């Protein structure tokens, strides 16, 4: 079945690509292009459902709805990974901020406690 090969290849490719250079400019551009493409496909699928059926038959899926389901599954994985890394980098920045506050306050507090000269 062509569809299985296509789906697995796309899933693996996306995952590798995005994990490897998540923050690069190209990846960001690619993500936006992919999103644009996704929207266009959605519009077409809505206006011409029979086209989706035709494509589904071509790649070896029984019905157009199944094809849509598969594509959605991939999109979901993609969004999950994207969100995971987004949260991670958010957390890193948040940690830096909290650390800066903690150290700043501690220098003052401990200077008072131990009667040392503030640096």
């Amino acid at each position, binding site marked *: 079945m062509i569809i299985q090969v296509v789906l697995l290849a796309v899933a693996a490719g996306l995952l590798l690509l995005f994990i490897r250079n998540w923050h690069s400019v190209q990846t960001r551009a690619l993500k936006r292009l992919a999103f644009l493409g996704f929207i266009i496909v959605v519009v077409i699928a809505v206006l011409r459902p029979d086209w989706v059926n035709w494509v589904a038959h071509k790649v070896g899926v029984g019905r157009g709805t199944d094809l849509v389901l598969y594509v959605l599954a991939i999109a979901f994985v993609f969004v999950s990974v994207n969100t995971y890394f987004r949260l991670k980098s958010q957390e890193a920045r948040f940690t830096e901020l909290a650390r800066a506050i903690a150290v700043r306050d501690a220098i003052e507090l*401990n200077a008072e406690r131990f009667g040392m000269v503030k640096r």
Partner: protein
Amino acid sequence: MQTTEAPGAAGTSEFGDVWVVIPVYNEGSVIAEVVEGLLPTFPNVVCVDDGSRDDSAERIFHTGAHLVSHPVNLGQGAALQTGLDYALLRQEAQYFVTFDADGQHRVEDAAELVRAVKDGGADVALGSRFLGEAEEVPWLKRALLKTVAVVSPAARRLRLTDAHNGLRVLNRAAASHLKITMNGMAHASEIVGYLARSDLQVTEVPVTVLYTDYSKAKGQSLINGVNILFDLSLRSRRRPL
């Protein structure tokens, strides 16, 4: 407030250039005892209160240890890095000890590790439960830790027998280049990975871990190993921040 002897006055002691970093999270019942145990040997102790909900911060405040408070809970790895950052600000600090807050490490072991770096020519000394007599380690934990030490490429490269011991000593060069990004428990593997990639001299020193009922109850559960593996597997392929 002047409670104990000011740490600044202790530059004369053998370990006056050593800073002990203790990440603290909800350890109010034992932390003061742990700090008081350390201070006679190590005059410079910094406790990082990681947003504890108990009275840990207050307990630390009444000891002679420096207190750094995270405004929110960030995790043990983050607390360690904060403590190191704080200690690195001290010009006189040359050696940095990481020490667990729950009382499972022995002060004399920490001193032994510092000597291994100071006099032994190593940049980093790691405590190992398995080098010396290790009959105290519960068997399941022992099996898991042994497995990690064998499976982890970094630990293998450094020929470590114990990849997840909280007792470590780093000299200034090693400490200043360490950037812990794993806020949670995965930082232990992150540190080993950092050491394996660097050309720092790493040595292992046998230590005894005191598995008290308290530290056993507090210790990380084995199932948490799944979380650690997950975090680590996604981390290594990312660009450093």
